[in-house]
């Protein structure tokens, strides 16, 4: 027997759990219903992300000051560029679908204790598959062609996501490593496919042919506003994923495996099944992010068409604290920053890179929430910490 078995939790200091003050169980139990929304809890949950954004904007302002530009004109430009006119608002919302799908993908992985860094690759595979179905399959009505193209995108991403899930469950290979590697493979593979077998010969730049109109996600307010049905689809997926995670036995299993795999196994759940399933679902969402860009916006697939949606989605999932509903505001915020950056640069001469700095600061403050809690003296809620991911092979 060794003093510290490898699998035992490392314990530095034996601390006694403080006893609960005994409370009359009947009275206390009646007070809380399982369906009611606890508004004060919700507010505390929202407080850290909101303060993180605020703090990041304040530091952003200091950086603008340091460059000698006007903070007011910069943030004014950012604001009006993002939401100042119907067109600006529409353009902000156009950025949302890929962020929502991809953010959901990462959040779902987190719920199962998996860190899916491979959304960028799953997105590429999904985009590829949906593009090919979109232009190759001819003669179908839209009612069949569009769902088929979306399904192809989801499936491409699901397969690409399931591989690291299976590797993790069967061999213990950590998904962080395998998904990063699969990203390279997916991105180079799509590059090759665009340049060679699937290339539109009539175009000078490497890209696939345009998809057929029957596979296009329709515009919601006409072509001028570019906002397409992918936005609606994204909102539906948020609801679906929320329902799966909080209302279904499948979600109960995924969350249990994420929160305590040993207890999940003890309770008869299959770790392998849930790892593969969660990664496949996550990959499918990543694939939909790509499909929605191709079918709704680009209508073909070009080389390096993704503006890093897969990587930004990690930030969005963190900002949303892995809550499916929270993904919506987080994704729109991200889109707004990106969309408003142009006008900001125009008005104040501040480089667009400032947006990257602000985004990075938001993530630092959300991930290291102790900083924000320290600055604004927010009491820590000890119970029910969100498990994002666990260590290597753990």
């Amino acid at each position: 027997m060794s003093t510290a078995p490898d699998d035992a939790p490392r314990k530095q200091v034996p601390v006694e759990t403080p006893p609960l003050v005994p409370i009359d169980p009947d009275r206390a139990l009646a007070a809380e219903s399982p369906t009611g929304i606890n508004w004060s809890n919700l507010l505390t949950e929202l407080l850290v992300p909101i303060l993180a954004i605020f703090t990041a904007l304040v530091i952003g302002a200091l950086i603008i000051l340091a460059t000698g530009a006007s903070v007011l004109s910069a943030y004014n430009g950012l604001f009006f560029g993002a939401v100042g006119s119907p067109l600006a608002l529409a353009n902000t919302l156009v950025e949302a679908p890929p962020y929502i799908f991809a953010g959901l993908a990462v959040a779902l992985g987190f719920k199962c204790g998996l860190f899916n860094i491979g959304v960028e690759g799953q997105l590429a595979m999904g985009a590829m598959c949906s593009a090919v179905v979109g232009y190759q399959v001819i003669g179908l009505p839209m009612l069949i062609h569009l769902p088929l193209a979306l399904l192809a995108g989801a499936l491409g991403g699901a397969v690409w996501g399931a591989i690291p899930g299976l590797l993790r469950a069967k061999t213990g290979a950590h998904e962080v490593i395998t998904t990063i590697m699969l990203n390279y493979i997916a991105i180079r593979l799509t590059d090759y496919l665009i340049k060679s077998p699937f290339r539109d010969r009539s175009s000078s730049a490497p890209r696939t042919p345009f998809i057929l109109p029957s596979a296009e996600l329709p515009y919601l307010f006409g072509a001028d506003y570019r906002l397409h049905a992918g936005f609606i689809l994204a909102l539906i997926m948020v609801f679906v994923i929320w329902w799966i995670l909080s209302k279904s036995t499948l979600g109960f299993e995924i969350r249990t495996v994420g929160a305590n795999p040993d207890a999940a196994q003890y309770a008869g759940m299959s770790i392998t099944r849930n790892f593969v399933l969660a990664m496949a679902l996550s990959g499918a969402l990543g694939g939909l992010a790509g499909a929605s860009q191709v079918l709704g916006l680009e209508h073909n697939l070009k080389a390096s068409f993704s503006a890093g949606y897969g990587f930004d989605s990690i930030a969005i999932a963190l900002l949303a604290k892995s809550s499916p509903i929270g993904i919506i505001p987080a994704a729109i915020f991200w889109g707004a920053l990106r969309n408003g950056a142009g006008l900001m640069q125009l008005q104040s001469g501040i480089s667009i890179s400032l947006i990257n700095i602000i985004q990075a600061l938001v993530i630092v403050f959300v991930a290291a929430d102790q900083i924000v809690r320290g600055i604004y003296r927010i009491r820590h809620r000890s119970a029910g910490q969100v498990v994002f991911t666990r260590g290597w092979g753990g």
Partner: protein
Amino acid sequence: MGRAMTPVLEVRNITKRFPGVLANDHISFTLEAGEIHTFLGENGAGKSTLMNILYGLYDPDEGEIFINGKQVSIRGPNDAIRQGLGMVHQHFMLVPTLTVAENVVLGTEITNGWLLDERTANNRIRDLSKQYGLDVPPDALIMDLPVGVQQRVEIVKALYHGADILILDEPTAVLTPQEADELFVVVRSLVAQGKSIIFISHKLREVLAIADRITVLRRGRVVGTADPKQTSGQQLAALMVGREVLLLVDKDPATPGDEVLEVQDLRVLDDRHAVAVDKLSLHVRAGEVLGIAGVQGNGQTELVEALTGLRAVESGHVKILGNDVTGAKPRTILETGVAHIPEDRHRHGLVLSYPIADNLVLSSYYREPFAHGIRVDAEAINQNALRLVKEFDIRTPSTLTPASSLSGGNQQKVVVAREFSRPIKLLIAAQPTRGLDVGSIEFIHNSIIRQRDEGVAVLVVSAELDEILALSDRIAVMFKGQVIATVPAGQATREGLGLLMAGIVGEHAGVPIGEEAHVHRA
């Protein structure tokens, strides 16, 4: 003994608050030179908090500490060590891959130039060993040593660093009765040579055996100080819990029925692929409790994991109610009517971040009435929780409270309530009361016996001999992966079982070999 002298340690009005809890409430005590002062209390009584304050791990909110009459403030373990305090933690703080000597000198290495001066270190360790009767081999690797010896290394380490006051935190929890006796000899030799000892425990028997003075803590307060010569276990237990407690489980003789669990020549490997369970055979009948005694680490954990499907079986057979479940999946085994109280409730038994209600359906969430198809019925889950919280007296502010904020005893009640709330034929309970207070132990023991009386076959694995003796109808002793003897509970003695636990088999071990007792040669 000069009781008139200044106490080596005096604590006045120590108070420590944690959010929502008063962990230490104006605690005062003294420790005289050459005294063994025992602190008795349930889990959560504030013993560990008090010791962590003495060792500088926590800052007290109020109160003073005097060492040899001089007021001190202890800012951390290094400070404590400088003041002559040494602590032997319940979970040893040793590096398994280093030698005894390396562990002892860790942090204060003697060097000549760039190199570690092992000769000098080894010699000092040998001197200390000899002086206090602590037999430790300086060159051996920690991982190769039995737990009892590892504990002696911890004591040597404290002495090496110049400790005059030793704090022993639940030192017998990991020892066999014989090893505990050896520890008592060491402790007495330490005080005979002027050291002073603070000895923390929740075991009444050993407190009465070793203490010069007993201080009882309850809910962060000193509720009494007793002289071991003038008190009884009953009195101490009542003081500790705050009410009269039954120290023995009140039960009728078993009426065993059909065989429920049959294990044949089971072989199981541990995490390092060494044989942990070696050709083990046993059987449990309906309506009886088979207790498995043994020092921790003799394959009990692996046995239970293999029986419940959590660990692969190398060879052999496991039959439950006549069905071969060797190597079956955990869910298949659960569904044959097996309840499992796991050894580590934090690791296996609970999802700490989940509300109690969800923890109570952890293994039945997918079945009616908790799920309809794939839809989970939150209302049914909550109703189930409300019922079980009442039935099992789980003290919680609500059914939606996360399991992490319950006390250990209430957490274990959640596990027990879940496992007993479905129809079961076999109960496998591993260390069912580890780390629990007397009140919770009483409750859980009675629940287990009630299951037995309803015809459930019960397999109890415990490192606590008292627990095995209290619950079992038959006792199997495990040593190095095998059952080396099975004894009817009526004929078992602490001494006999203790020798068997150390692997000593035979007439000279004093095992009462009646007509029913089987002694298997290893």
